[in-house]
C-alpha cells in the first residue's frame, strides 16, 4: 500500500479492513454491506491495487464499523479469498479468513421466481453448497441451482 513514502489509502484507527478482495469486486463488497445506501462513516475503497499474492486486488476500509457474522458470510460468497481485519487503535485486533460456507442461510434470495420462498411466507432461504470452486448452491426448497453472478446478484 505504500508507494514512495506516501500512503495511497489512509490508515483507519478503528473499524474493518477487508483485504484480498478479487480485483473488480470491491464495489460489490460495499453493496452487500449496504455501504452504498446509508453511509455515516468514512469508507475507503482501493480498486486494482498491486498485490504480491494476487497480482491485483481490491481493498475496502470502513471506519468505526465492525462486521456481524452474517456479513462475513455474505463476503465469503463473493470473495472467498478475502481476509477481514478488525482494527483497534491502528492495529489488527482480529483477523478472519472467509472460507466458503457449508450452507447459505438467509443471505441470498432464490433466483427462481416461482420458488415458495419468494412468496410472502415466514421462512428464510436455505441453500446447500454443491460445489465450492466455483461456488454452486442449491435451494433446499425448490432445488434450483445458482452460481457465479446469479448468486452475487441475489445477495439480500
Amino acid at each position: 500500500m505504500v508507494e514512495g513514502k506516501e500512503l495511497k489509502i489512509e490508515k483507519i484507527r478503528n473499524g474493518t479492513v477487508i483485504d484480498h478482495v478479487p480485483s473488480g469486486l470491491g464495489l460489490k463488497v460495499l453493496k452487500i454491506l449496504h455501504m452504498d445506501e446509508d453511509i455515516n462513516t468514512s469508507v475507503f475503497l482501493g480498486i486494482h491495487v498491486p498485490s504480491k499474492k494476487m497480482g491485483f486486488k481490491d481493498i475496502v476500509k470502513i471506519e468505526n464499523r465492525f462486521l456481524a457474522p452474517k456479513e462475513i458470510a455474505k463476503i465469503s460468497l463473493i470473495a472467498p479469498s478475502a481476509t477481514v481485519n478488525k482494527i483497534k487503535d491502528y492495529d489488527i485486533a482480529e483477523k478472519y479468513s472467509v472460507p466458503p460456507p457449508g450452507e447459505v442461510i438467509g443471505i441470498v434470495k432464490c433466483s427462481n421466481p416461482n420458488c415458495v420462498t419468494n412468496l410472502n411466507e415466514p421462512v428464510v432461504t436455505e441453500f446447500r453448497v454443491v460445489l465450492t470452486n466455483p461456488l454452486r448452491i442449491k435451494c433446499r426448497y425448490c432445488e434450483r441451482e445458482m452460481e457465479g453472478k446469479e448468486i452475487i446478484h441475489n445477495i439480500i
Partner: protein
Amino acid sequence: MIPYAKGKENDFLRGKILATLFFEPSTRTRFSFETAMQRLGGGVLSFADPKSTSLSKGETLADTIRMMDSYSDVIVIRHSYEGAARLAAKFAEHPVINAGDGAGQHPTQTLLDLFTIHNSFGTFKNLRIGLLGDLKYGRTVHSLAIALSNLGSKLYFISPKILGMPEHIMREIHEKEKPVVTDNINDVIGDLDVLYVTRIQKERFPDITEYMKIAGSYRVDLSLLEKSKKDLIIMHPLPRVDEIAPEVDYTSHAKYFEQAFNGVPVRMAILSMVLGVR
C-alpha cells in the same frame, strides 16, 4: 395392496384423517389419494375449491398448514410454487406428502410409474425407456428420469428441441449413463421396452401451426407400433389429448389405464408407511 385397492375390507387406518390440499386442479392424483385413504378405513378432509379457503384472503401457506395439521394425521399437498411441500413439512407436525409442486417434482407419480414398470418387467436394470413429448415443463418426467437413471435403466429423451430435458436434470443424469437424445421417435421406437408419453401443451407454442405440425409428428398410433418390440409397454400420466390414438388402447402395449389404477395401491402403501402401519 392390490386386493385392498380393489375393495377387500380392512381397517388399517381406521380413525386416521387425511387432509388433501390441492391448490391446483387435479383429478387422478386427488381421487386416488382419497380412494386410497378410504379403502384403508380412514377419513378424508378437503376443500372443493382453493378460492374458498382463507389463502384467498391473504393467509400464508404456513398458517393454512398449521391449521390443517391440527385437524388431521397426514397432509397431501399440490401447489403451483416449487418447494411448497417442503415448506409445509416445516410447519406441520404430521407427515406431508408432495402431490406436485409447480414445475418441481411429483414423487408419488414416479413411484406408481416405477411400480407399473416393475410389474411388467420385474426389473429396471438395462431396460430401454423412452420419455416422449414435453420434457421441459413436465414435472413427472423430471422425477422419473432421475429415478430411472439411479436404477440402471437406459434412457431415451425424445422431444422437439424446444421442449428438451432441462439442463439441471441432465446434470443429475449424465454422470451415470449418457441418455440418447433425439427429436425423432421413428429412429428409436424399435429399441424401446417402455415408451412413456406426455402431452405437448398448445400454450407452449407461440404459433398454432407450429404446434399442429409438431404434435402430429409425436402421435403414437398403430403404424408407429409396427416397428416396435412385441412386448413394448406404453405409459402416460394422463390426461391425454390426441398424442396416443384410441386404437392403441386395445393393444397389449397399452398400460396407461393400469398405470392410473396403480395410483391407488401405491398411495395406499405410502399412506400406511407414513402413518406407521406396515
